[in-house]
């Protein structure tokens, strides 16, 4: 069982929506021990099966509203209305996990990277690319110390 799952989501064909998958690609190329990298266009309920195989998870997404260059936060299970759309948010996925497996999901965190332009066929915007650099540095640090107390220190300092 990999200790840490990094799960990026977003559409690589839609400008800054590619931030999550792009960061995942970068981390995957490092071939870090005990780190599993996954990405998908959007979160769906079947991704609970990915969570089942890890001890700690970091979701990575583009966000139009978060602070620059990124926001790092802890998240918990929450039954919310994101189910009514065609994609789920991470908290809803954690809630679904508890319904499917009858136990709490692994400790989860969310790294939101600030994006600006989500146009079809666009490349990453310059600003988003700069934010990605900063977010990648944080993600590498997190992967190097994948335990809860240390990650919580990052929350305090974020």
């Amino acid at each position, binding site marked *: 069982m990999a200790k840490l799952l990094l799960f990026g*989501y*977003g*559409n*690589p*064909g*839609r400008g*800054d*929506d590619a931030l999550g*998958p792009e960061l995942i690609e970068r981390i995957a190329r490092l071939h870090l021990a005990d780190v599993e990298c*996954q*990405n*998908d*266009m*959007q979160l*769906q*309920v*079947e991704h*609970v*099966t990915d969570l089942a195989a890890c001890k700690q998870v970091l979701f990575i*997404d*583009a*966000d*139009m*509203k978060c602070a620059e260059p990124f926001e790092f936060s802890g998240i918990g299970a929450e*039954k*919310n*209305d*994101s*189910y*009514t*759309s*065609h*994609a789920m*948010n991470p908290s*809803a996925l954690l*809630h*679904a996990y508890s*319904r*499917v497996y009858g136990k709490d999901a692994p400790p989860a965190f969310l790294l*939101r990277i600030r*994006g600006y332009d*989500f146009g*079809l*066929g666009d490349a990453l915007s310059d600003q988003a690319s700069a934010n990605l650099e900063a977010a990648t540095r944080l993600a590498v640090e997190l992967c190097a110390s994948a335990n809860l107390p240390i990650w919580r220190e990052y929350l305090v300092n974020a």
Partner: protein
Amino acid sequence: MDQNATSPSGKDQSPNLRRVAIDPISRVEGHGKITLMLDAENHIHEARLHIVEFRGFEKFIQGRPYWEVPFFVQRLCGICPVSHQLAAAKAVDQLVGVEQLTPTAYKLRRLLHFGQTLQSHALHFFHLSSPDLLFGFGSDPAQRNIVGVLDKYPELALKGVKLRKFGQQIIAAISGKRIHGTATVPGGMNKALTIAEREILLTDINDILAWCQDAVALNEQIHTAHPEHQGYATIHSNFLSMTGSGGELELYHGGLRARSADGTKIFDQFDYRGYQSVIREEVRPWSYMKFPYLIELGKQQGWYRVGPLARVNNCDFIATPLAEAARKRFREFGHGGFVHDTLAYHWARMIEALHCAESIDELLHDPDITGTGLVTELGDKRSVGIGVIEAPRGTLFHHYQIDEQGLIAKANLIVSTTSNNQAMNESVRSVANEYLDGHEITEGLLNHLEVAVRAYDPCLSCATHALGKMPLQVELLDADGALLDRLTKGGNGMIERTA
């Protein structure tokens, strides 16, 4: 009111019409907007489903080398990227002069397509539509979702999760990764399926078959036991689909078959490379989407439906035994004729899911599937390639023209949702006439309209999902265009009345 708007038939609208706008639709793939045109007596005169579709994409790929196209077009959709890849790959095969793939490449593509269709159908029924069907269209929205199903029907919901996961495992095994894999190359495939990968996929196949049978039985029970479902959003239409050379259900490669509402064949085993001689696309000023129609029947009568309902109605048989038995029960329900019930799309969709599971089982036991002859010899280059497959949502056309350098000079895509465009408008009109009282937009009305649209499993494009970008807005305007009422549903599901 938009004074420049015209009706689907192109006629000017009456000045006494009132417009109700619902924007966008939730729980379909992407975003859309519904405009209901009311007359002075508050009857629905016309329904318009606005969809931001793929027109920009056709322009976007111009100038790209043809060999890149199967990978670019995957980015059209977060749910069925494989369908676009395969349709484009078939077109590219023609561009490089390939008439026939190697047995292994052909079967790998079919396996990929069955995996894609299975996971897409599972997503639609278990995640998007089962809440409506199990809890009722007017039930509490807080319960009417996949987690509500997990709470009340945990065993069923878990089957849905695992079915979708299984389909994605097939895609990942063949494509190398879960999304945006690189399975196809001109004239074949670029990765063999290993014996170890095949064995892993076979591990759960008996469960997959059993769950698909259960899903068919559940949908059959729901539809036949609820007379109110049978007339809901129901319209009588022509049907278009591919069929195999023997008239069997065929999702990857076959000839086009069109039949009128009473079953009369309009054309059959038609070579799809000549589609422009039987299908024309009408442009209407109020929509990005075109309105395809069968030329022989004309604009007014020639619109048609595609997708599971069309395919299961249109075929003469299904080549896998369990799905064929299910199809026969479906036809018995229609007394041997077509089943036109719009909500029967769900039933037909699960029959196809069962067919996919059976076909996957068959292919995984075929020795060719782990072969290594992946690419056939390329022939003389051609300037035009047209690939057609039956995507989960219906017949999908990819048409490319290249220049002397191999760059895309022109592209035309007819996606399944475009073919169902007029049919969805008609279904929306049918439901709105029954549930809109003309005075207030209610959440109940909104959901009833969505149930009708969702039956078609429309792909409204996009797949972008950035946080905070999923509002749902309903507007009611009077005959003079003044705002009477507006409901806004935020990305967090909160509903706010702002007028």
